[in-house]
């Protein structure tokens, strides 16, 4: 992809001159996640003092409990961009947390897991989810809990790439592996492959379904170098349905977009997604319902600067949140649909001048909440109408 950028650069230079050199020290790692439990308590996991901290809020994010650490001392934790600690809850005061522990060689890591069985007061000793212990890429963990209580973790894994390399063969992208725990996170069964040829650096979207399967949406590398999205369904025992192409933007690029998709399901079982592309037809963030061979009710989300959208559905109501930088502030915006994605209302929620994480949309009791962790407002929560 090639673009003339001279005009933009001139404008940018003027802006830079006005903004001055008020460089802040990079603290790094605003990546955070949040999840409701059945009682309506909101849980958040984020990197604090270099460790995964977990806090709970009884009042929808107005106040938060003191942080409890879920990761060991002196263990590095990835918390930038599409890599961030994940949190999920289950009945009986269970709180599950995953994170990626970067190892010393570039792009290498381990997927780590810890749980609390006492309402977040204490966390178990961390365990490594995968049986594969090579010092290679295991990164970009995703976490979900199925209706029957099984805990499923998926991640981007380069064991197949490394094996191909050792044979002197080429391998497109990375792979996605997963592992499940049938004992509430005490242990994980052997990891299995969900798909070959994923993009190397974008978050995965997991969706637990009523039939006990998991739908997964991720940025794939279709031949020869098309980084559109793929959808697959798998079961915690390792049964995997063949993937199908889910988005058709034809973004051909040999690059890391660092920009993964999000997936949700409505009361009719239809899949709603948001994703980012710089494909030739319509670069930007998109919403659509994923149907066999195409996208339904597709629309652009936000303007040219829209980024890192997240989606949630409750019944037939759909909410999308995203952020965008207008040259001076980063905006948090949302789209709301009452009819399964046919008609939309746009809302401006907030803006910040400082650094910010990607926003997440959560549902609880038929209502939507947007969670946004920023330097200015830690663990912020906005309730949608």
């Amino acid at each position, binding site marked *: *992809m*090639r*673009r*003339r*950028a*001279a005009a*933009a*650069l001139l*404008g*940018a*230079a003027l*802006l*830079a*001159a006005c*903004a*001055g*050199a*008020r*460089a*802040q*020290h*990079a*603290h*790094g*790692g*605003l990546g955070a996640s949040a999840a409701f439990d059945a009682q309506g308590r909101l849980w958040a996991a984020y990197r604090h003092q270099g460790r995964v901290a977990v806090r709970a809020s009884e009042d929808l994010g107005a106040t938060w409990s003191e942080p409890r650490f879920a990761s060991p001392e002196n263990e590095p934790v990835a918390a*930038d*961009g599409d*890599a961030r600690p994940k949190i999920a809850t289950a009945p009986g005061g269970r709180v599950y947390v995953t994170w990626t522990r970067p190892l010393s060689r*570039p*792009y290498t890591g381990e997927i780590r897991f810890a749980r609390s069985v006492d309402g977040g007061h204490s966390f178990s000793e961390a365990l490594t989810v995968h049986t594969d212990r090579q010092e290679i890429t295991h990164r970009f963990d995703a976490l979900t809990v199925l209706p029957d209580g099984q805990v499923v973790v998926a991640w981007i894994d380069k064991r197949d790439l490394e094996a191909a390399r050792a044979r002197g063969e080429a391998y497109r992208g990375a792979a996605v592996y997963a592992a499940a725990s049938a004992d509430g996170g005490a242990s994980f069964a052997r990891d299995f492959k969900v798909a070959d040829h994923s993009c*190397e*650096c974008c978050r995965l979207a997991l969706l637990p379904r009523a039939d006990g399967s998991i739908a997964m949406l991720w940025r794939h590398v279709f031949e020869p170098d098309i980084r559109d999205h793929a959808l697959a369904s798998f079961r915690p025992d390792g049964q995997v349905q063949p993937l199908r192409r889910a988005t058709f933007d034809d973004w051909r*690029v*040999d*690059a*890391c*977009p*660092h*920009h993964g998709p999000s997936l949700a399901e409505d009361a009719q079982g239809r899949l709603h997604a948001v994703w*980012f592309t*710089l494909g030739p037809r319509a670069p930007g963030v998109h919403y659509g319902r994923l149907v066999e061979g195409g996208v339904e009710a597709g629309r652009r989300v936000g303007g040219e*600067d829209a*980024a890192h959208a997240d989606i949630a559905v409750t019944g037939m109501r759909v909410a999308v949140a995203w952020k965008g*930088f207008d*040259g001076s502030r*980063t905006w948090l915006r949302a789209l709301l649909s009452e009819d399964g994605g046919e008609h939309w209302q746009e809302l401006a929620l907030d803006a910040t*001048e*400082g*650094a910010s994480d990607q926003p997440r949309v959560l549902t609880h009791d038929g209502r939507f909440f947007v969670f946004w962790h920023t*330097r200015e407002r830690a663990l912020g929560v906005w309730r949608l109408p």
Partner: protein
Amino acid sequence: MITRRRLLGLGLMLAVAPARAGALRPFGLGSFEEIRRANAGRAHVVAFWSVTCAPCHEEMPVWRELRRRRPDVPLALVSTDGLPEAAGVEARLAEHGLADAPAWIFADERVERLRHSIDRGWRGELPRTYLVDARGGTEALTGRVQWHALADWLARAPAR
């Protein structure tokens, strides 16, 4: 002349940069413009990369090649990783034989603002490369740059 200006710049940077950044220079809101100004009138390359980006890793030999074959074309390597990752960034540069290449590291956690100060069309995908000709004409490339693309550009870019 350029060298002297660079040395001066480096001296200033060292004075304000935290010790952990080592030889890396902090990249802030005005840095892209400073790099372009320092190299005005000659073709040069500004390459953005990250230690967490596999295509960036695969691209690095092209930059070593550029420095070897066209020492007259200044190269600025900018890591988007942020100051806490400085040690890893330096290790990667050294691994690729680029320890002595002029290198910067993002020193402002407001990365959207930083990207906007470089090119508002850049959405954060990596590697991202700016090929600037002697007249200031700029081409932005997303994805791994191959030597033939670079050689093509060098052949057709106005030399003055």
